[in-house]
């Protein structure tokens, strides 16, 4: 399994994705490969092609809940912009280029302060990050116990 946390830590809560992946990296979980980046780009298609499961962690703007977690399928948008490559697009590229179809999930962690150039997460975002981490660790452990049978969607 690979976890890709992405976002810009210099844009306030947009750094939630990297903060999440770095936290998980600190836990050194043997079953989990970690990648941290500013944004999703085409070569992530190659990165995920060698994995059975991929989790994309990103900030979510003003989400209703502290985080959301859902399974996604490949989907090619009408227009592909490198700045905003979506997880669905990376999956579609992965399938198109390499014939691989990893099972994929998006973990959207709710953030509230995005506009300003600044480092560090808002208090609310930090709390959401804690909740998302707790959930994800439970999910991982449940996944291990149930041989990979996991819920398709969770909103907490």
């Amino acid at each position, binding site marked *: 399994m690979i976890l890709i946390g992405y976002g810009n830590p210099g844009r306030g809560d947009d750094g939630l994705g990297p903060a999440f992946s770095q936290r998980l990296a600190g836990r050194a979980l043997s079953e989990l490969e970690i990648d941290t980046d500013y944004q999703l780009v085409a070569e992530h298609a190659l990165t995920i092609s060698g994995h059975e499961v991929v989790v994309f962690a990103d900030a979510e703007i003003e989400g209703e809940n502290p985080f959301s977690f859902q399974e996604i399928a490949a989907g090619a948008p009408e227009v592909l912009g490198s700045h905003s490559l979506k997880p669905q697009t990376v999956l579609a590229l992965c399938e198109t280029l390499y014939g691989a179809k990893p099972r994929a999930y998006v973990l*959207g962690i709710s953030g509230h302060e995005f506009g300003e150039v600044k480092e560090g997460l808002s208090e609310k975002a930090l709390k959401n990050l804690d909740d998302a981490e707790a959930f994800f660790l439970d999910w991982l452990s449940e996944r291990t116990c149930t041989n990979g049978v996991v819920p398709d969607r969770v909103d907490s």
Partner: protein
Amino acid sequence: MTEPRMIEISPVTRVEGHGKVTIHLNAENEVDEARLHIVEFRGFERFIRGRLMWEVPVIVQRLCGICPVSHHLAAAKAMDMIAGVDQLTPTGEKMRRLMHYGQVMQSHVLHFFHLAAPDLLFGFGAPAEKRNIFEVLKEQPELGKRAVLMRKYGQEIIEATAGKKVHGTGAIPGGINRNLPLERRDHFLSNVDEMIEWCQDAVKLARDYTLENEDLVSEFGSFPSNYMSIVRESDGALDLYHGTLRALSSTGDTIFDQVPYTRYHELIVEDVRSWSYMKFPFIKELGPDVGWYRVGPLARMNTASFIDTPLADAAHKELKAVTSGTPNNSTLANHWARMIEVLHCVEKIRELLHDPDLQGTDLIAKGDRREEGIGVIEAPRGNLIHHYKVDEHDQVTYCNLIVSTTHNNEGMNRAVKDVAVKHLSGKEQITEGLLNHVEVAVRAYDPCLSCATHALGQMPLQVELFDADGGLVDCRSQCI
């Protein structure tokens, strides 16, 4: 007869960041005015104040998710000056150059194959659902795989020289903090010849497009301008990492040459306009009306006397021959120029990989501390200037950045106007395909519009049509 109206394209797609194009049509459907508005982030210059000089090369990477290395190196060069270092150690300079060539290579490849290719392959007016990378891959899957591997090669070089993919720390004031281990060198050497072959194919692809579509290329967003870049001090060769400033007119006459880049502020003035957040630089001695200039791959092909790697030099000569050695003014020729630079970068990478200095251990030079530093490099999109002042506590008190997209601001606006007048004027119905012509002109500059937040819930592309009273007449949107 219709009412005057305004069309807005916001944000422009397949460019880095966010921009908005407004096109003003009069009652006869003629284009009155067309402008590119850039929501540029000026907050960074304030954000950097108070930070310690040692932190700056790392922090500035947060300016841009696509070219963090460019900012990293420009800031490091400025900090070299503050550290009193005018000459890096051979290992320090060569490791930085290797990092820079990897960065320029991967950035150009991304732009050409993933962002520009759909327009070039299917035509600017092709249906939107056809004009994307997936359609390109259906027709040329091997091209897509190559593009990914070329990008990966460049990214791996960045990782090996900067320490990591995100927020690398390789370049530090006065030098570099690592050399290249032999096993990493051997890994890169094992692929480099194949990369050069692929680059040659990419140059051919871009060249063939340019020559086979000569009529379109010569008129599409094509207009005379001045050009500026750094070139190698000794002989005027293309040099993406270090050199002196050179500016030429549209006919190839020298405006200035061999000027140390630390004097940039004596040569360039940044003009302000009420309708844009971004400044409009011009060459001081020529004034704002005729002193504006363009930077970037094509500008560099125009300003460089030659290229010091054989395959790229041959390609450069071929590009120059199209305009009999005078500057090429065609916006779309940027694509050919970009691929020549990719080839040059990989040739330089191969040259450096064979250089034992990359395994040297003398990494940092020292000098007498100064209070002010200026660093200039040629980033993928063009000339990039970082200027800082620090106090006795090593804290930044002043920061001025002129990014490539700012240099190109006037040029991009003129390209938008040129294309709008030629392709939209007089059209009763403005289709998405016609609007894409304007975006193609903007995309050719590969502008970086200061990466904004990209989190889930990203804005869609919106095209809005207003009547003369500001009422919304029509609105299109698509997800990006």
